[in-house]
């Protein structure tokens, strides 16, 4: 019984043209359900993680800060999931949880690196002075002040040079053999390079110890260089082969089409084009070897005085110096060890940055060719 019933019977309502209502009027003036933004949910999750864990620690009387942190993390992850689940589907909630976990792993990796670098700097910078960098440990007893790291620096540099001279040409020629020449031994060689790349550094040290040091040559920087070369060869070979693979085959064909024998094509075209990549590969190999302690322990034995000759007599190097000092539990030695660690880290950083810079410059040069 509405007003509409009182229309005259024979007046059929003529359908009017539909009125174009303004769009705004069709949108409800209030949201149907609560849609929380991701950022709000993140803050809520963090808050609930922290408060929940605090409550639990108070209730159960836990005092370890790490216990608090672990529970806070677990509650945070749980809340992330539940909050998302509340406003959206389980698929989205799981996705959000995984995203959080993945971001966490990224954060862990960067924090660990920064923590390690920062810690070494903080502990080592105090002892880093001119005297430290230019003297050795020969006149200094374990409890005395003074003493330095110079003999270790000398040892590291000499052993690195020997290892590089021995390993880099062999590694690059091996990479050429594998990729350019593809000889009959290629399969076996690749197999062996794989085997070598997993060789524990201490086993490499043992090998040189048995065939060189024990056979009467005695410990020396050269022996350490040999052991380090064994460690460098597979790394440099593999990276060099990757670099050669990036060289466009058209370049090789062009060189051959000009009448070149294969060796000229490789030496005059392929290798120069890959030069920066090969240098990067070599520097990375050096960076790996520079930090190895175990092989040097077994071959150069270490020393507290400068030994300028790598061919004769025990020699120190940076990682070994640090290790041997750490084995003596007194503060002065440990302090020296930390400063030595800082020097080592700086060396590795320099090599790393160098490899990056050269690698990028080379990629730009090569990048011209499609």
């Amino acid at each position: 019984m509405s007003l509409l019933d009182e229309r005259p019977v024979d007046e059929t309502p003529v359908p009017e043209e539909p009125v174009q209502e303004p769009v705004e009027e069709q949108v409800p003036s209030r949201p149907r359900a609560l849609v929380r933004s991701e950022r709000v949910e993140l803050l809520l999750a963090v808050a609930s993680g922290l408060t929940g864990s605090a409550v639990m620690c108070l209730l159960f009387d836990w005092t370890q800060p790490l216990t608090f942190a672990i529970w806070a993390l677990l509650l945070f992850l749980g809340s992330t999931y539940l909050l998302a689940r509340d406003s959206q589907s389980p698929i989205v909630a799981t996705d959000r949880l995984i995203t959080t976990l993945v971001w966490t792993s990224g954060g862990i990796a960067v924090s660990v690196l920064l923590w390690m670098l920062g810690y070494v700097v903080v502990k080592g910078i105090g002892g880093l002075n001119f005297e430290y960098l230019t003297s050795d440990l020969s006149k200094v007893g374990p409890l005395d002040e003074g003493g330095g790291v110079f003999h270790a620096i000398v040892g590291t540099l000499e052993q690195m040079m020997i290892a590089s001279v021995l390993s880099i040409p062999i590694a690059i020629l091996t990479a050429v053999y594998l990729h350019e020449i593809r000889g009959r031994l290629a399969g076996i060689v690749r197999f062996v390079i794989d085997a070598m790349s997993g060789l524990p550094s201490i086993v490499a040290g043992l090998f040189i110890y048995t065939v060189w040091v024990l056979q009467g040559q005695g410990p020396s920087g050269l022996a350490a260089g040999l052991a380090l070369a064994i460690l460098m060869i597979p790394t440099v070979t593999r990276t060099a082969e990757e670099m050669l693979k990036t060289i466009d085959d058209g370049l090789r064909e062009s060189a051959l089409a000009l009448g070149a024998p294969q060796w000229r094509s490789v030496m005059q075209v392929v290798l120069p084009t890959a030069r920066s990549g090969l240098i990067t590969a070599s520097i990375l190999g050096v960076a790996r070897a520079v930090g190895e302690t175990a092989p040097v322990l077994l071959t150069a034995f270490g020393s507290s005085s400068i030994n300028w000759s790598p061919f004769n007599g025990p020699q120190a190097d940076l990682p070994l110096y640090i290790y041997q000092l750490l084995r003596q539990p007194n503060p002065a030695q440990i302090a020296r060890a930390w400063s030595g660690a800082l020097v080592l880290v700086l060396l590795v950083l320099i090599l790393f940055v160098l490899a990056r810079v050269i690698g990028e410059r080379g990629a730009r040069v090569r990048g011209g060719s499609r």
Partner: protein
Amino acid sequence: MALTTPDLLALEEQVPRDIARTVTRGDRIFRTLCASAAAVSLFIIGGTALFLAIKAVPALQKAGLVSFFTTSVWNPTVGDFGVLGLLIGTIIIATVSLIVAVPLAIGLALFINEYSPARIRRVLTSSVDLLAAMPSIIFGMWGFFALQAPLVGVAAWLNLHLSAIPFFRLSEADAPLLRSSFIVGTVVALMIVPIITSVSRDVMAQCPRSQCEAALALGGSRWGMIKEVLLPFGKAGITGAVLLGFGRALGETIAVALIIAFTVQANPHVLEQGGGSIASLIAIKFPEAQDLEISALIAAGLALFSMTLIVNLGARAIVRRTQIAA
């Protein structure tokens, strides 16, 4: 000059010529040079196995080949050597490091490949590469001085809440938690994360984007795409990557030698102080060792060499197979 098919059938079948692919003298020398360089690696591996075996004989004869691998003792004066406990310890430490490393490494790999914005990606790949380049002694020092205290707290937490798992129990209520396999394993885990991450990244990057995009186009979430397309695709390669990490963890020497409270006996209570690995055995005992003990250390090194060889070759074979197929 068109040849129609009937004409062709009338002609004789041609046979490929014997081409004199004369290799110039320069090429011959070059190939020999490169082959010799490649052969150096063969000699190194072969030589290592051979010489280590030869020098290990005296100790193995004295201690007995079987008892060398089935007992846990290290007594140079009597000539009694047995590395069973250390073999177990090596595997314990490597396993702990895998458990910690694998989720972190795969999360990192996924983060770099799939989740991170471009700017952060560069920072992250550089961080991973730099972590890979960090000397193991730095890891060992930092692990011993900086990381131990917080990790002891974690160990206490694990012992408190998860003692249902037998490994997390302690042999006695007040056992010290410092210098344990757990702490060493965590530090070694951080050392092997880079290699697992970069190999996993390479493997996953080869997944055809069209498949991944198809999964997303069907209305799936990013995690759904990863779970249904990316991870199954990369399964074999990631397994290979994990094995590579395992092999690396087996051979880690200095970080273990610095941190662990060395003992020859196997210690299944990973949260508790005490443990050891073959590599750390060699590093710790070598400086003072004489003749027979050195021979025993060489025998231990040979055992380590064999273990890592098998693991690494298996891992590389798996990874190479995925690369050829891709």
